[in-house]
């Protein structure tokens, strides 16, 4: 990973800059950072909480002139994701940008500020029987902006796609203070480049997301979840692929398994009562070799349990072609024996999942991640690390390869953030 040479040419002293920020947001909304505000060991000086996008713009402008590196933050649930920043003096928190600006329920769209709590948005929308058809990690804490910045998605993806299929408009504040809107309030719109998609998953490296507009879906009238168990991964995999190639329309197909657990498969149907009933019947016919069990708890939030336990583990996101899940699990099984790796995964049938890996020594954790990554990458997939011990991060890029795209990604970054003040170094390819 090459470190870009960033010409620093602060024209304003840091003290003057903090004074200016203070005058923009008010003294009570700029506070000295605490140890827990550090991001991967980089301790910022101040935490700033602007209340409007004008304030965000003014703060960024000031930061840029004083060469302060900015670490954007929502609720802070995923600050450990990404590579360690090269530097970061200022945490820009979107906490006070927390209004649902419009729920146009007749048009099934909603405009929200980036600091909105994800679950609160859903609760607001449910008043009119609608939702953002997305189930990210930790919705009770996560903010909309943070969910967007990391491109988080859950089991609902089986039917509704990911954020790129749900976001229709965005407001970004660039490091030079430009406030730019793209997309709009209509679900169908091809006027200009699709910046909502560019910003989604960009980890705050291009601009601060201040507002987002989503297309909404009706909250389903009925929902049915069925869970099956089998000790045989081949049977599990065949069952999942059979569901995928059947006429069933599930809104979740999930595999949970691990080095010391058997395979459990969760399937969910939503829609009308009649639709759920008949699909359930069809599914049960297909599931002849499976044991039907009661779902153990809220299995649609099973991904969250991968963070439970020892912090010497790594939690990774993997992507692969759906048909390759079985061979991936087989490889994990071999590896768990060879390298004494304990693992646990929650995988979505569309070809991605989360994986928890634990080894007796951090060194072998690095080896295991590298080995899995090279297998996945050679087949068009990927493995990126979400959480891991610091030692692992010091040896591995958390993102893995971006193929031949890094030069292009770097030129996009250079256009949006020429001085490299936003989340420097946290993203892929040294961005």
């Amino acid at each position, binding site marked *: 990973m090459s470190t*870009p040479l960033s010409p620093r040419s602060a024209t304003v002293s840091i003290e003057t800059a903090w004074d200016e920020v203070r005058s923009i947001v008010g003294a009570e909304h700029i506070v000295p950072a605490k140890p827990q505000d550090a991001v991967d060991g980089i301790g910022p000086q101040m935490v700033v909480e602007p209340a409007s996008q004008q304030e965000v713009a003014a703060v960024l402008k000031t930061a840029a002139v004083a060469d302060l590196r900015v670490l954007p933050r929502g609720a802070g649930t995923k600050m450990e994701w990404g590579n360690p920043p090269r530097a970061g003096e200022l945490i820009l928190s979107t906490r006070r940008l927390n209004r649902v600006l419009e729920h*146009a329920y*007749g*048009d*099934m769209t909603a405009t929200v500020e980036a600091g909105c709590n994800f679950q609160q948005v859903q609760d607001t929308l449910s008043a009119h029987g609608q939702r953002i058809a997305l189930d990210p990690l930790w919705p009770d804490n996560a903010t909309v902006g943070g969910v967007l910045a990391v*491109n988080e998605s859950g089991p609902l993806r089986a039917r509704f796609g*990911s954020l790129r*299929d749900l976001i229709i408009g965005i407001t970004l504040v660039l490091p*030079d*203070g*430009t*406030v*730019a*809107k*793209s997309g709009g*309030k*209509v*679900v*169908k*719109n*091809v*006027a*200009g*480049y*699709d910046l909502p998609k*560019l910003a*989604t*998953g*960009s980890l705050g490296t291009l601009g601060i997301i201040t507002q987002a507009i989503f297309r909404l*879906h009706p909250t389903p*009238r009925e929902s049915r979840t069925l869970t099956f168990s089998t000790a045989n991964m081949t049977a599990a995999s065949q069952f999942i*692929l059979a569901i995928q190639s059947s*006429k069933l*329309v599930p809104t979740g197909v999930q595999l949970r398994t691990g080095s010391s657990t058997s395979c459990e498969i969760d399937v969910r149907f939503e*829609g*009308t009562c*009649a639709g759920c009933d*008949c699909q359930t019947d069809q599914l049960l016919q297909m599931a002849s070799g499976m044991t039907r069990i009661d779902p153990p708890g809220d299995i649609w939030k099973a991904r969250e349990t991968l963070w439970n336990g020892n912090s010497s583990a790594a939690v990774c996101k993997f*992507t692969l*072609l*759906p048909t390759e899940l079985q061979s991936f699990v087989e490889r994990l099984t071999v590896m768990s024996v060879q390298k004494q790796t304990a693992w646990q995964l929650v995988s979505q049938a569309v070809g*991605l999942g989360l994986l928890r890996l634990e080894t007796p020594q951090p060194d072998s954790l690095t080896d295991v991640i590298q080995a899995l990554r090279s297998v996945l990458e050679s087949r*068009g997939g*990927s493995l*990126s690390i979400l959480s891991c011990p610091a030692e692992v991060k010091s040896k591995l890029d958390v*993102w*893995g390869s*971006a*193929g031949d*795209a890094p030069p*292009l*990604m*770097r*030129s*996009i970054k*250079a256009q*949006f953030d*020429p*001085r490299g003040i936003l989340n420097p170094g946290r993203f*892929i390819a040294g961005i």
Partner: protein
Amino acid sequence: MEARIIDRFRAVVGKRLITEVAQLRTYECDGLTNFRVLPQAVLLPETSAEVQAIVQICNQEKIPFVARGSGTGLSGGALPVDQGIVISLARMNHILEVDFGNARVVVEPGVINAEVTLRVAPEGFFYAPDPSSQSVCSIGGNVAENSGGAHCLKYGFTTTHVLGLEVVLPDGSLVHLGSTAVDRPGYDLPGVFVGSEGTLGIATKVVLRIVKKPEVIKTLLAAFNSTNEAGAAVSEIIAAGMLPAAIEMMDNLAIQAAEAAVHAGYPDCGGLLLVELDGPSAEVEELTKNVDAICTQCGAWEIRVAQSEAERAVIWKGRKAAFAAMGRISPNYIVQDGVIPRTALPKVLSEIERMSRAEGLRVANVFHAGDGNLHPLVLYDRAIAGQEERAFRLSIDILRLCIQCGGSITGEHGVGEEKKMMMSEMFAEPDLETMQLVRCAFDPGQLSNPGKVFPRLRLCAEKTGPYQPHPLEVAGVAQFF
């Protein structure tokens, strides 16, 4: 164009090079025929390597190029640029891979949209984006325009179905965006490339997602006295929490034209609604009843459900032929492509009617009612002095109305040449400047379809905002990245 450069091009594509003026005429416009520019040459590469070699020459010689698929675009996207060449992808028309297990297909850009479905249908799949031009338009053109179709209401637009791309960038380098798997780490480059109207490079391979055919499809036709009544039914259907596969509307003028062209057997009414429901049979049965009841409640006096695949095909044939059918009732017409929030439908339709009367020109309406994508067709006669200008003005005023209602100037046809001036009415200057940053990252030399989409060119060296380049940067000592 200098003979030397022509020779360089010939060395790449041999006889697949057109320089004869008479032959070049075929390429001087796309589906929007009132804009015409004669290109200097047209090249028909057959491989990614040839596209790359051509673009490398363009980059070295500073020659602007325009990619062209089937030339059915309706916004002048494939209109050649002055002193430039056209790169036609028509001969790169192979389906390279079909992977049913993963519901993926890899195609060259010149593959015709409908051929993808044709190829995968025997295994029970289809390619969901279905522009009315699907029997002729290319996947490359669909990618560039982020094309839609009637079934995008439920299934999403082209962008939803593009997982990965091989692209020749304007500097001649080859790059892979996205992948066959979802969520490749890094910026969502396929997301930015799709819909970029040929301004960010040339797609030479596309990884598409295909979709399983639903268990059951029901197509329902409902006749109302007015588009307002039909519009109310649309709102009720959506409010009832249903997401049909398609909801299309036609007004009386559009019905007349479609009838004259394909005899679809549509009822002669003021507002015709075409609703398609698909999915598990039990669900579709139930929802069809609901839709039927809602339509009746909103004043439908005739409701027909297609009883066979053949009947369904006829219903769709009428709808898909609607643009071309205008030729039956008017010597000339302009197709527009505005989008409005669905709830603004009644207001916008009555306003269009008022404007049409005031201008003394007929406007037919055919549209994707479910997502508020209007296609007002402004009818006129070029032979009558001044009518073409008035028609053009009216069509632009309709787009202004869409913007005023919080909508967009284009839902699926693209900005292209035609609507680029409207971009400054829809977006503020900083919005456009920010989009141009993407342009500068992909195409700093502005060679790929220059002059389209944006109201003006932007010099990529230009720095915006309060920052000046660092002296070290100017001296070439330091670089960003």
